[in-house]
């Protein structure tokens, strides 16, 4: 049986893909594009491990049908690193020790990036709100919030 043709731009690169009607954006990213930085935790929108940026907004890729987002621009955690090395957000996460097991980190980074792109100088409250949909079982949110603050302040994004 035929599949749907979908065009996605992921981390600046254009892909023409065929997807099933129930294929989730998370599956497309991990299985078709082999970008395994994006994680699957709860599968039902609760943990944020699967967060990616879809047309400038943070979304849970486990809750999005790829067929629905034909023509969209997507950024995954792999889109952060460039030839110049790690992204300021990534550096800040390392510096502030905001990572332990790392499972939540890609999602945290995406939520933080979506925030800073829209609001380059967020307050602590705004950072907390932006990270509300991302759970971390290890680090404690304090370091994570500090890392986002530091990235916004020191380097700007």
């Amino acid at each position, binding site marked *: 049986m035929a599949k749907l043709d979908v065009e996605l731009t992921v981390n600046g690169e254009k892909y023409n893909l065929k997807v099933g*009607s129930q294929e989730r954006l998370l599956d497309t990213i991990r299985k078709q594009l082999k970008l395994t930085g994006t994680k699957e935790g709860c599968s039902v929108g609760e943990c944020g491990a699967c967060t990616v940026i879809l047309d400038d907004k943070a979304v849970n890729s486990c809750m999005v049908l790829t067929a629905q987002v034909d023509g969209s621009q997507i950024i995954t955690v792999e889109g952060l690193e460039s030839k110049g090395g790690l992204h300021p957000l990534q550096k800040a996460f390392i510096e502030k020790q905001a990572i332990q097991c790392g499972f939540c980190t890609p999602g945290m980074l995406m939520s933080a990036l979506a925030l800073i792109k829209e609001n380059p100088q967020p307050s602590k409250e705004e950072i907390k709100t932006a990270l509300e949909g991302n759970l971390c079982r290890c680090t404690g949110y304090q370091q994570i919030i500090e890392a986002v603050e530091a990235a916004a302040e020191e380097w700007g994004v």
Partner: protein
Amino acid sequence: MKKSPMKLESSQTISGVDFENYFQPGSLKEALEIKAEYGRDITIAAGTTDLFVAYYERLHTIKNWLDLSKIDELKYIKFSEKNVKIGAMTTHLALKESEELKGKFPVLQAAAADVGSPQIRSRGTIGGNIATSSPSGDLLTPLLSYQARFKLETAGKSRWAAAEEFFTGPKQNIMGPKEILTEIEVPLPKNDSSGYWIKIGRRKALVISTLNFSLVLEFNKEKISRAGLAMGSAAPTPVRLKKIEEMLVGKSLDELDHRKLGEEVKKQIAPIDDVRGTKEYREDVAFETMINALEDIESRRG
């Protein structure tokens, strides 16, 4: 319009059942025609944040999809002198970010800002919130308080339903199999008004509320000329507490007996026991909340 038969692929699916069609119309007219043809055999997909939970690990049982996401004519917030009209595909994020909504319908705007998390707000829609008709749907209580009405369309026909007539049971409503919810219309308060919104849950983000509460009072001079009080998770559907509204109308704030009103609220609701809280807990919370709401409004009006 895309119409393409295909095989299931998702890792959420377990069996090898084939689905039939995925429709992605670009206009409402086409969407209504497809809905008329398929009726209950097609599932509407808006932001899919409720659907993916409801169909966890059985997405494959959805045979036909009607995806409304490409219908731009269903995404708007339009103000006039009389009301605001909101397209069903408007996201919680768009409601949250509307300054005009915040100014004119602060209780509705605050509820949208409290839905789930940023990720949920950027996908979830007002239409999906209403159509799901959960007793805890956050937008439903403000819509009841403001006396909103919903436009239900079928190919060639449309009707309006008052919010308070719409919900008939937990996750049940009066929508027919060929209908699509297209617009939400909320009348502007006639007089100066004050409102109060709160959602009480165990954690701020993500928790579907244990109790949500919205109160809108309109004042004529210092007397309450209209009251809209609604609660969610307090009964099998979100409910408007008309008896209490009647006790408020005609009085000024300092004439109200807060504790008595709180007791009355407790009597009027029929909360459910579930994992998010017991019946007694919800009754006590409803009592406290009513008192806090009146105090808060009083202090803000000085």
